[in-house]
């Protein structure tokens, strides 16, 4: 069970850390002060949640959280490619936030009944926090998804760009059966099904169109360490201080 559990924890922690870093890139640049604060706050939540997950991994024998976060190379990260893509314009960041956080909220919801009790405890905590993330995403998607021709076409374009990567969130691990049988996690396929239903409900309240799922080829690879060219530069920037002085406090 140990390998299966570690794989699950690593991909979740890496998703949170990398998207947390991308969110933090909006600090000082948000299109509105409130959005600047929102993306910065979500960054803080996500990096904190990744720390809690890396701490769980540490109790399972992995290296300490800072070493794990700051010294691995891109091919040792298990995040989905969606979270490492550059922020681009606000419309893309918003769509990504909506697609990813909807999945993340459902994932932690499912994990509240995990047979691995430390993860279930953490999930019961994080579930409440993520409600604010999905509230934020849904509010803006509903508002801008029905506002002006420009806001609608921008979001539609970003949605079409992001959806194949978003399906990459649910790339299966070699341990799906084990995780499901041991009731650690419901599995990626079940999660994806719930996610599609939730996405369609929110998009259905806007003038945006959900693409035909059958025509989309998911972008996989991230979970197995095969990333886009965007991850390594992100890691280099994120770990710059640590690499100069691992004992520095900041």
């Amino acid at each position, binding site marked *: 069970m140990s390998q299966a559990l570690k794989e699950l924890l690593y991909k979740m922690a890496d998703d949170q850390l990398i998207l947390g870093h991308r969110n933090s890139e909006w600090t000082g640049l948000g299109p509105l002060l409130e959005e600047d*604060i929102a993306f910065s706050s979500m960054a*803080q939540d996500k990096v904190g949640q990744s720390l*809690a997950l890396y701490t769980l991994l540490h109790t399972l024998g992995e290296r300490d959280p800072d070493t794990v976060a700051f010294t691995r190379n891109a091919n040792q990260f298990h995040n989905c490619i969606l979270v490492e893509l550059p922020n681009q314009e606000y419309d893309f960041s918003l769509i990504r936030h909506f697609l990813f956080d909807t999945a993340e909220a459902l994932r932690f919801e499912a994990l509240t009944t995990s047979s691995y009790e430390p993860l279930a*405890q953490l999930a019961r905590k*994080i579930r409440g926090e993520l409600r*604010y993330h999905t509230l934020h995403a849904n509010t803006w998607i509903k508002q801008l998804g029905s506002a002006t021709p420009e806001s609608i076409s921008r979001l539609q374009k970003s949605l079409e760009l992001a959806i194949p990567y978003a399906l990459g969130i649910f790339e299966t691990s070699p341990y799906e059966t084990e995780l499901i049988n041991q009731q650690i996690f419901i599995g990626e396929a079940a999660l994806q099904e719930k996610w599609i239903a939730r996405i369609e409900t929110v998009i259905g309240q806007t003038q945006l169109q959900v693409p035909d799922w059958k025509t989309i080829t998911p972008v996989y690879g991230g979970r197995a360490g095969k990333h886009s060219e965007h991850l390594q530069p992100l890691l280099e920037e994120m770990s710059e201080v640590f690499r100069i002085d691992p004992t520095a406090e900041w």
Partner: protein
Amino acid sequence: MNQEIHQILETVKDPEIPVLSLVDLGVITEVAVEGNNVLVKMTPTFVGCPAMDYMKAEVETALRQKGYQPNVEISFQKPWSSDLISEKGKAALKKYGLAPPPDNKLFTDLEILENAVCPRCNGTHTELRSPFGPTLCRSLHYCYTCREAFEQFKPL
């Protein structure tokens, strides 16, 4: 909780909201005293709360100053909820200008954030401006009665 330890912990305040002690905030989940050794279990309000390490160090210092040997653990066993803020704590928040969180029993839907009660004029004709504020535990609101912006301690 041991009366003396309780009094010591009462002196440690939330660094972001200095009118609220950690006891009133509800983040102290367990205290066990054995001779001079004091075990304190704490839990963060939000997992990403950057003040956690600071508060842990403050608890250790406060206990050491009174001659105790502290052992402070961060735990998620008993997760924090805004319902754990004491009545005294909620009154202190309001006096400080922060709307206290609504009771979680009423909080079945985030819609409740739309009807935060203004801590200044008690007006209920208010609007949620953003679920994210200057710290992870606060949201931004606007009161149409007194026409002032205010913050609420988020229900969780």
